[in-house]
């Protein structure tokens, strides 16, 4: 089942990766400056307020995204193009009698100093001291998330529609592709981990979780414009999903679950006292490990692919290009498998934690 599943996703995405190589190096900035691999990679991994598409003759071409700020004077919205591709705190945007400045993809209230043309001030360690408004902008990540939502809704509502058209409840068309995935979650994740009695209640959550993570993982691997955002490699994203799992686990947990944490039955009292803090910490470590696993895996994948591409620019030799390309294609293909497995692992572990919380012990 798993093998077939991975085969499906591999074949689905194989085509997309021929384009991978072409699009990434464009992020290398203008020739006058020394190429900074670290900066390029971090720029790609992190969120940004505009969707950078490519550079043409040193001019950045990007898709402007709305900036939404909750400031001291209320809600402020404007397009990120007003910063004019500036990310070093040199351009001020004035709205509602307030001045804003963007520095390293964070938006601050501008300070008046204007030292070296910058409207930000730092302390000795390089931390920015400017005050920040609450930033609820539609960033690159949020934009990418909305696209993934639209795609998911389109795909699965269309799938649901194929069932009403088919006569004998058999999937037709799109359903033939998506149904095995749904059945995979049902038979390989929900049923064994949660149990036959309760699994149906958690199916919608597990399905949404799995496909939401997977489609965002896959979109992160596709290197051209509306995709390529490293959303599932962003800790805020994985944090929210892990917290949702944590909340569900804690809310549905039965008496047995808490008993097994604070007063493990069938053990001598000193052992119980010893285990209780460990088990209690375990409640929090479980979702934290979920969060870190997905974030680090996906980010690491992006970093590796970008690093391999960057080898060409580090060694400044076209001779290295074939090697670099070969390795990045190789890693890309592995990543196709990894992103599917990571979505699967996140889902199966969530199901496992929920299952352990509602499990009824017999003793």
């Amino acid at each position, binding site marked *: 089942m798993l093998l077939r599943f991975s085969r499906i996703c591999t074949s689905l995405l194989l085509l997309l990766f021929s384009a991978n190589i072409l699009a990434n190096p464009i992020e290398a900035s203008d020739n006058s400056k020394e190429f900074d691999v670290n900066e390029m990679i*971090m720029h790609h*991994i*992190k*969120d940004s307020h505009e969707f950078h598409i490519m550079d043409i003759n040193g001019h950045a071409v990007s898709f402007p995204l709305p900036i939404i700020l909750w400031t001291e004077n209320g809600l402020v919205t404007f397009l990120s193009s007003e910063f004019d591709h500036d990310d070093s705190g040199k351009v001020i945007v004035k709205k509602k009698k307030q001045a804003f400045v963007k520095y*390293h993809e964070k938006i601050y209230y501008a300070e008046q100093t204007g030292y070296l043309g910058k409207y930000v001030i730092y302390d000795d360690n390089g931390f920015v001291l400017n005050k920040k408004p*609450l*930033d*609820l*902008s*539609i*960033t690159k*990540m*949020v934009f990418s*998330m*909305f696209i993934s*939502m639209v795609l*998911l*809704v389109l795909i*699965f*509502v269309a*799938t*649901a*529609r194929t*069932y*009403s058209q088919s006569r*004998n*409840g*058999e*999937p037709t068309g799109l*359903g033939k592709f*998506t*149904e095995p995935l*749904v*059945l995979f979650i*049902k038979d390989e994740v929900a049923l064994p981990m949660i149990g036959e009695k309760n699994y*149906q209640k958690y*199916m*919608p*959550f597990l*399905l*949404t979780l799995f*496909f*939401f993570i997977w489609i965002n993982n896959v979109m992160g691997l596709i290197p051209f414009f509306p995709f390529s955002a490293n959303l599932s490699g*962003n*800790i*805020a*994203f994985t*944090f*929210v*999903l892990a917290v*949702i799992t944590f909340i569900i686990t804690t809310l549905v947990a039965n008496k047995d679950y808490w008993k097994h944490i604070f007063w493990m039955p069938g053990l001598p009292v000193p052992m119980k006292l010893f285990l209780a803090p460990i088990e209690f910490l375990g409640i929090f470590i479980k979702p934290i490990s979920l969060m870190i696993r997905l*974030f680090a895996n996906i*980010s690491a994948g992006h970093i590796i692919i970008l690093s391999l591409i960057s080898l060409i620019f580090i060694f400044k030799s076209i001779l290295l290009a074939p090697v670099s390309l070969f390795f990045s294609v190789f890693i890309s293909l592995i990543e196709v498998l990894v992103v599917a497995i990571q979505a699967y692992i996140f889902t199966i572990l969530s199901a496992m934690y929920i299952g352990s919380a509602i499990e009824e012990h017999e003793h």
Partner: protein
Amino acid sequence: MDLVTPDIGLIFWTTISFAILYFILAKFAWKPILGAVTEREKSITDALSAAEKAKEEMANLKADNEKILSEAKLQRESLLKEAREIKSKIIADAEIEATEKANKLVKSARTAIENEKSAAMKELKNTVVDLSLDIAEKLLSKELDDKSKQAENIQNILDKTKLN
């Protein structure tokens, strides 16, 4: 450090997005899809169980047939046995009856013979008495006439009179 600090804005939007996505998909996608899947699975299990039931019924039917057959066989056997018993009983009864009848007949015949015999004896005695009397009478009458003649007469009479 920047990399591992969750951004408030993205947390906000992810929470909202996931919630919206969950409700839309749960209502418009997962419910019909899982419904169709469960329904299909149910129809398959139903069909399977129906087939199983039919098979069981067939087996039952076969078992019933065999049972009926064996019962009929048993019945036939017992009927035959009964008939045989009746037959032998009838024969035995008939034999007994016949013997009894024969015995009775012989007995009655014997009594009849006995009776006839005694009757005959009686008659014989009477006849002998009569004859004796006759002879005596005639003898006496002749005796009275002539002794030789008397003897002659007696001889004559005795010749004429056949005993019995």
